[in-house]
């Protein structure tokens, strides 16, 4: 009896999947690594892996529409003469003029102001439009020092010393020549059209002891009025937080690997840094060990999308959060209305990440005058304000269900984890158990 060989379907490698194969071919054809914007696209343990427990017999909830749930947060209470108070703990992260268009920066300022929160400059200095439209503006102090000057330091409401960011801890900035317009070039004191490389280290300090002296200088220049933040990428959150506190920070900003960037190597974005979820508890622990929790405020960023994410970050011990990518989406980034143009660029709405090329159909990550016109800063600012308000309401809804009259009263005991990984990272019990990996007991 002869053996009949049945059809065997072709089997693709899990290791060499279609994306990997395409990347190898692309690298071989072009001789350059892939540069793109946004944060990591790989799946990592995140806030989706946590759930709130809600009220029960042992905890009673607050009435949804009648009992107050406060959302205000005050930042910079440690040393600054003029701390800033925000109506919502959801702030707008630093994004540069240059990476973003002028109207996009204006829209961020408008939206944040309507919602009663702060927005932040970026690696390109402060524009008058941005200052004018932002009630509360945080001025970033970056290694490049593009556009840095004492007048802008003094007209800022807070100063953020940027040591690193979640998309690329240990990496500097990058703005490719096609986005260096006359105005961007002038603000950065660079020739038009060249690739702008921002340094990865500050030019005049290294290490925590120097940082302490640098912060002293910034405080002296601004007469100790401004809250001083220190922003770090999610790498060694316990020690980075402790050292930032030691150096005299009023606020620590901690950005996990889902945090976006305007342009960086894909290999960097996907392979360096830790997920946001893994960063929070070590940072909070450092603050608690130093007796500084709630005295030095902690802002968490990297993948915040909803009021649930906000509530979870705060329950784990953060004082506030910052959004970047989500804010751009609220403005109109990756909107399916531009699908035909995304297709022409070889992508699709929701996947467009070539922010460095300056061809953004939505007119946000561009310096092209025609594309920029597509974004109405007033309407886009309104959308952002709506989104911020919805997230705030969502967080309040959850907090009330947990019986909390302030978002800051949320606590780890309000949470459980859906996966062992998330349980270990967030240090809350696996759902249905009292077990936290690494904490003993079962």
């Amino acid at each position, binding site marked *: 009896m002869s053996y009949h060989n049945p059809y065997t379907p072709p089997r693709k490698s899990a290791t060499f999947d279609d994306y990997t194969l395409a990347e190898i071919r692309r690298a071989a054809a072009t001789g*350059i690594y892939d540069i793109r914007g946004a944060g990591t696209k790989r799946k990592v343990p995140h806030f989706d892996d946590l759930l709130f427990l809600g009220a029960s017999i042992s905890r009673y909830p607050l009435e949804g529409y009648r009992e107050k749930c406060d959302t205000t947060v005050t930042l910079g209470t440690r040393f600054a003469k003029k701390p800033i108070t925000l109506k919502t703990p959801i702030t707008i992260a630093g994004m540069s003029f240059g990476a973003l268009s002028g109207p996009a920066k204006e829209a961020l300022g408008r939206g944040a102001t309507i919602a009663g929160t702060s927005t932040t400059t970026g690696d390109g200095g402060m524009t008058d439009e941005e200052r004018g439209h932002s009630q509360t503006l945080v001025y970033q102090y970056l290694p490049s020092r593009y556009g840095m*000057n*004492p007048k802008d330091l003094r007209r800022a409401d807070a100063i953020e010393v940027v040591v690193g960011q979640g998309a690329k801890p240990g990496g500097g900035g990058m703005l*490719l020549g096609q986005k260096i317009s006359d105005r961007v070039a002038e603000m950065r004191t660079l020739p038009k059209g060249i*690739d702008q490389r921002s*340094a990865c280290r500050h030019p*005049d300090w290294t290490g925590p002891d*120097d940082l302490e002296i640098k912060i002293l*200088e910034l405080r002296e220049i601004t*007469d100790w009025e401004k809250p001083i933040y220190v922003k770090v990428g999610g790498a060694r959150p316990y020690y980075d937080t402790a050292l930032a506190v030691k150096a005299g920070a009023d606020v620590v900003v901690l950005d996990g690997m889902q945090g976006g960037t305007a342009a960086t190597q894909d290999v960097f974005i996907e392979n360096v840094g830790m997920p946001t979820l893994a960063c929070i508890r070590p940072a909070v622990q450092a603050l608690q060990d130093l007796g500084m929790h709630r005295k030095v405020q902690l802002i968490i960023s990297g993948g915040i999308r909803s009021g649930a994410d906000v509530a979870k970050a705060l329950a784990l011990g953060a004082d506030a959060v910052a959004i970047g990518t989500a804010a751009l989406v609220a403005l109109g980034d990756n909107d399916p209305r531009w699908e035909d143009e995304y297709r022409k660029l070889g992508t699709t709405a929701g996947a467009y990440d070539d922010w460095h090329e300056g061809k953004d159909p939505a007119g946000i990550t561009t310096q092209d005058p025609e594309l920029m016109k597509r974004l109405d800063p007033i309407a886009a600012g309104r959308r952002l304000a709506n989104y911020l308000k919805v997230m705030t309401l969502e967080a309040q809804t959850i907090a009330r269900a947990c019986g909390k009259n302030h978002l800051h009263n949320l606590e780890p005991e309000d949470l459980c984890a859906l996966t062992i990984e998330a349980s270990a990272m967030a240090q809350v019990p696996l759902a249905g158990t009292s077990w936290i990996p690494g904490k003993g007991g079962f």
Partner: protein
Amino acid sequence: MPVIDLAVTPLRDLNSALHAIPPGPNDIAFEVVNPRGSHSVAVGIDAPVAVDVKGSVGYYCAGMNDGGSVTVHGSAGPGVAENMMSGKVVIEGDASQYAGATGRGGLLVIKGNAASRCGISMKGIDIVVHGNIGHMSAFMGQSGHLVVLGDAGDALGDSLYEAKLFVRGTVKSLGSDCIEKEMRPEHLSKLAELLERAGVKGVRPEEFKRYGSARKLYNFNIDNADAY
């Protein structure tokens, strides 16, 4: 002339007094005694005030100076005159690392030597060093002039943009994309002006060599990867 004794007066009092000077022309002069290596002496000046510091200072003296005239009768620690906008800062002794870092304008004169990274990321400042400078000076220098009467250390002008460098002595090595360039009449003229403003006597512009960017790294090319 107000005299601030930092042995008994807090630094905060000095800097707040310097920030309280009303706008407009004035001839206010301050003297600071017993600095004893204090950090952030005379930072954030935004008026045409003169400050004489009698002794050596720590980090960031005259940081972000905008219009002031600061003289340190001693040596300066790291980051002296960092991010200066305008005005003049003179160090009678030596300067540590990062002198004039990211400066946008004004004139920094160092009468002794400057350590490594002098003029790092300079953005328009003019720096004149009577002595030698250390390694990695003018790294990523974007604009302005660095004049060195003595020698320069390793990797001068690495990843240079448009800052112009003039060295009278030897250069131990040039950094990536930094090359010697032709000294044209306009450069000699600028150099003469800088030497005069810095109080340099008996030195001719023709004694210097000019260094600047080869501009080969301005736009990424994979075949230049070894230079990054």
